[in-house]
Structure formats: structure tokens, C-alpha cells
């Protein structure tokens, strides 16, 4: 589906070049971003994904304000109704029913979604920062720095991801909980560990671009006018390698959300009394058997699926929009 619009793009390319060069009145020149946006809009599924993701993000951010039910309050009559009488406790008080303890599903989905999205976003920021710095240094300085940093990257690639995530999360959770408190401690731990195990592809990507870009004339020109090394790296070269980084970052958010949910699902992420989509799904596993309670694990699972699916479609659309080679 990525290539649907290729034919129309091919026709548009020369016209665009003329518009920028000749600049006839009434036509605004296009920046990289407005151009990317025009391409992105043509990818209908990516656009749908963007709206869905925005909707979910707004929902979990502002939902708890509009729907003030306490996510940890236990409604025993509703729980009994659901467990014993054999019907889901859908009511005005609990539009999505309650879980096995009688806690409101909708409120938990809001609060859990905040955690899942936050971990995904922050872990990617960590991963992109490390990856960009390592890749930029390796590519720009070359020689010893390059081979040292690339050895490090290869080493990290060879580390077994999920086993290490599980191990570190289990071993260090108590210490971080003592320092930062229950929720923040685990949040910091997950963000740092997921980020620290996912920066390698970005580092390689950025390094490869830096290797070729640092030989270009505009870098030479910048050096001639006396630009400092950090300024050349961050102001002159880095903006040119942002496109693939943005695509990788987008897809990385989805992967990080899955990592967090997997950890919570295996009982090594957030503790069971802090709702996240992964832990809700894990806690509700036993509820799968009964025809009137299976929504308890399935609802958070659908939320994870929808978010990851939207992100993957957005990433697909961004790749098409930001990669100029795909437009030729």
C-alpha cells in the first residue's frame, strides 16, 4: 500500500521543482515538512491511525477528569453480580463493567493507558537520544571513536533483550521503589531499561548518514565560516538525518509499549495494584473462561492492539512521506 501514490508522485516532481525555482505569484514555496504532510495525507490508513492514536491519547489524558470514578475503588455488589449471577456488570455506574475485584474497567483503562503511553513515549526519547548521540559521534569523528562505539553497539545488539529486561526489572525494582516511590520508581526503571536496550538501530542509521554527509560541501562551508564542532554536528548535519530517526522513533513507541505490557503481563512490570493495560490483561487471564467476564482481559488487550496498530500505520505513512527516494 506504500506505493499506491507513486504514479501520481512521478508526475508531480518536475512541477514542484519549477514552482520553487521560478516562484510564480500565488504559489507558496514548500518546506520539507509541509511537503511531507502533503505526502502523508495521501496515506489514508496512516491518517486514520493518527486520528485514532490522538483520540486514545486525549481520552486517557482527559478521561479521568471527565469520569471521576476511582480506578481502585472496589464495588462489591457489582463484583458479586458479575461473578455469581452470571451476567456482566454493565451499568450506568460501570459502562464497561468491573473486573474480578469489582474495580471499574473504564477508569482503569484510562489510568492504565496513561502509564502505557507514557512509558512508550519516554523510553523512545531515551533510546533516540542515546542512539543519535552515539551514531553522530561515531560517524562524525570516525577512526578510533567509531570503532569503539560500533563495538559497543554490536555488543548491545548481541544482548538477549527480553531475558535481560525481565532480569533487571526484577532485581532492581525494590531499590528504585525505595528511592523514588512505588509508581515513579518502576516507571523510571522501565523507561531507562527499555530505552537502553533499543538505541542500537538508530545509532547505526545515524552513523551511516553522518559518514556520507560529513564529506559534503555544506559541511565544509560551515567549517570555513568557523562553525564549532557541536554546531556542525547538531545544527548542520543532524537536521538532515532526522527523517529516518523520526520513522524509527514512531515505530519504537509501539515496540516499547509492547515491551512494557509484556513485562507487566509476566508480572515483572508495574505491580498488580497499579493498573496498566498489560497488568490488567494479566490479572484478568482467569476471567477468560466465563462467557460473562471475558471482556475483562480482552478490553485492555484491544487497547494495546489499537495503539500499536495505529503507530505502525503512522510509521508506514511517515516512511513514505519522509523518504524522498520513494517518490522518484
Amino acid at each position: 500500500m506504500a506505493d499506491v501514490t507513486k504514479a501520481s508522485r512521478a508526475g508531480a516532481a518536475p512541477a514542484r521543482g519549477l514552482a520553487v525555482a521560478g516562484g510564480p505569484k500565488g504559489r507558496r514555496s514548500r518546506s520539507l515538512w509541509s511537503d511531507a504532510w502533503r505526502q502523508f495525507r495521501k496515506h489514508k490508513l496512516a491518517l486514520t491511525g493518527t486520528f485514532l492514536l490522538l483520540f486514545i491519547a486525549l481520552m486517557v489524558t482527559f478521561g479521568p477528569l471527565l469520569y471521576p470514578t476511582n480506578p481502585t475503588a472496589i464495588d462489591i455488589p457489582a463484583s458479586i453480580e458479575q461473578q455469581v449471577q452470571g451476567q456482566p456488570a454493565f451499568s450506568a455506574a460501570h459502562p464497561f463493567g468491573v473486573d474480578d475485584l469489582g474495580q471499574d474497567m473504564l477508569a482503569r483503562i484510562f489510568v492504565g493507558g496513561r502509564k502505557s503511553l507514557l512509558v512508550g513515549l519516554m523510553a523512545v526519547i531515551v533510546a533516540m537520544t542515546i542512539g543519535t548521540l552515539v551514531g553522530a559521534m561515531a560517524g562524525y569523528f570516525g577512526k578510533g571513536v567509531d570503532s569503539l562505539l560500533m563495538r559497543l553497539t554490536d555488543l548491545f545488539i548481541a544482548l538477549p533483550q527480553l531475558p535481560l529486561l525481565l532480569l533487571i526489572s526484577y532485581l532492581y525494582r525494590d531499590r528504585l521503589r525505595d528511592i523514588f516511590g512505588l509508581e515513579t520508581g518502576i516507571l523510571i526503571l522501565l523507561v531507562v531499561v527499555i530505552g537502553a536496550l533499543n538505541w542500537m538501530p538508530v545509532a547505526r542509521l545515524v552513523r551511516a548518514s553522518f559518514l556520507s554527509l560529513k564529506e559534503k560541501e555544506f559541511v565544509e562551508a560551515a567549517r570555513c565560516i568557523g562553525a564549532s564542532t557541536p554546531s556542525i554536528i547538531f545544527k548542520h548535519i543532524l537536521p538532515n538525518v532526522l527523517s529516518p530517526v523520526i520513522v524509527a522513533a514512531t515505530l519504537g513507541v509501539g515496540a516499547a509499549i509492547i515491551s512494557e505490557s509484556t513485562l507487566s503481563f509476566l508480572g515483572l512490570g508495574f505491580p498488580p495494584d497499579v493498573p496498566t493495560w498489560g497488568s490488567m490483561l494479566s490479572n484478568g487471564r482467569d476471567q477468560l473462561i466465563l462467557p460473562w467476564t471475558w471482556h475483562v482481559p480482552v478490553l485492555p488487550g484491544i487497547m494495546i492492539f489499537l495503539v500499536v496498530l495505529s503507530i505502525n500505520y503512522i510509521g508506514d505513512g511517515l516512511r513514505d512521506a519522509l523518504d524522498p527516494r520513494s517518490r522518484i
Partner: protein
Amino acid sequence: MGTYIIRRVLTAIPTLIVISMVIFAILKLAPGDPLAQFAANPNVPPEVRQNIRRQLGLDDPIPVQYAKWAGEWVQGNWGFSFASRTDVQPLILDRLGTTLYVIGLSYALALLIAIPIGILSAVKQYSIFDQVATTIAFFGFSLPTFFSGLLVILLFSVRLGWLPFIYESNTAHDGLLGLWERLKFAALPVLVLGFFQAAQLMRYTRASMLENIKLDYVRTARAKGLRERTVVYTHVLRNAMIPIITIIALNLPGIFSGAVVTETIFRVPGIGSLLINSIQSSDTPVVMSVVFITSILVVVFNLLADVIYGVLDPRIKYS
């Protein structure tokens, strides 16, 4: 080529040593005392605890402890599992068989689904078949295994009652009936893992085919008057498979991560569920060995991928 392989193997060894050091350090620097259970027991006086510590070498500096561990590990002495009360090596090797059986079946399933569909999708690009297949693939790798596992349990075990959702390696029957039962127990974990892998592989196959289809040698083949089938299956496919085969080798250790999740859901007695149980019971010798074995798998398959690439593609020159 020969020297290249030797050089790669020689660089893999220091990588593995550093990885084992990293894992060892993570375990050693973690808070918590391996003798904590004795500390809580009033019948064990502090002097006795000190003696046990000294005997187990827990007071040695960490590098010394590492050297001792590494020396024993390469000789096949992987330590003693506190939780299972057996030696670690037979425990792991026993479990590894089950994991490889489930992973092997699911990978075979994934290849059987992904490659033909990927090829057809690329050949009939933009057709209804292609659109349905790419959409399903997109859904497939957006669906985390822990959720698809629950969904197949809900459908095939709870609703339809066709398949068991708790794995049993011992079957009541022998012969064909026993084999049938074994397959039934493995069916759901294999389905979940296989579908996830198939979704990724299908996308790679399609992309690789499409990349090759528009190249000049394909035009030449068509211009020679070869039949379309010959062009696609002998000319394009052979070249398109080169990156696919390396991706298959690279992904194999990754499927192990999926196995941790599916083994937990379906209670498969494999190496993944062993890892989870050992982490939760602080069974350090088992954890150390399992994590290190997965690292060995990652390094070995990365190496294999590089070597296979060179064998398949004569354009690659090793210097």
C-alpha cells in the same frame, strides 16, 4: 571465505565473554542477599552464616567470583539449582528440547504461510489478494503474542473446545495416537508464535520480491521470451530469497522472546517458563545460564546470517 569465517568466530568469542561479564555483574550488583532465607531463620546463628558465605565464595571480590564461575561453566558445571534441587545443566538441556520443538514447529508454520503469500502478493501487487494479505500481516505483527495467545484460548479452547490450552508433554497413548495428542498440545502455542513470525516474514518476502521485480535483469529475462513463471520463480525468487534467508537466521533468537510469553500462557515446560520461574524464585545459577545461553544463540545466529549471506550472494566479497 574460510579465513573470514575463522575471523568472525574469533571475534564472537570476546563478545560472548563481555556479555557474560555484563550479565554476571547485573546479577552480582543487584540488592538482595542470596542467604537472605538463612538471615530470617533464628536457628542459623550469624557465625554459621558467615561460614557458609566464605565456603560459597560470596566474600570474594566480584572479578574472582566471575573467574571461578566462567572456569566451571565452560567445563559444563553450570551450578546447582536451589529451587529444583538438581544440577542446572540437565535441567536446562531437558527444557531446551521442548522449547526447540515448539519453536521449530512454529517457524516451519511461519515459513509455509509467509513465503508463498509474500511471493503471490508481490506478483499480484495491488490486487485484492495483496491488499487482504498485507492488511492481515499488518494486524499480525501489531498483535502482541500475549494478547493473541488469550484470543486463541478464548476461541479454540473456551468457545469451541477443540484444543487444550495447557501443554502436557506426557501423553497417555503411544504411536500415532500419542503423536496426534502431542501435536494437539503444541497446536495453540505454535499457532500464536507462527502467526506472529509469518506476519513479519511475509512483509519482508513481499518487499524483497518487489525490489527485484523492477530490476533490469528481470526485463532482460522477459525480453528473451521466457515464460512469466520462469521469470518469477527461477530468476526473481532466487535473488529475493537472499535477504530473506539472512532475516530468518537473524530472527530465530528473537522468536525465543516470543517463546517466553507463550510458554508462560500455555504452561509449556520450556526454557522460557524456566527463566520466569527462576527469576521469581531468585534461582541465580539457572537465571545466569539461561540468559547466557540465549546470548550464545543470538551471537551464533548473527554469525550464521553473515556467513550464509556470503555463500548465497557471490557479489559479496570478504576482505
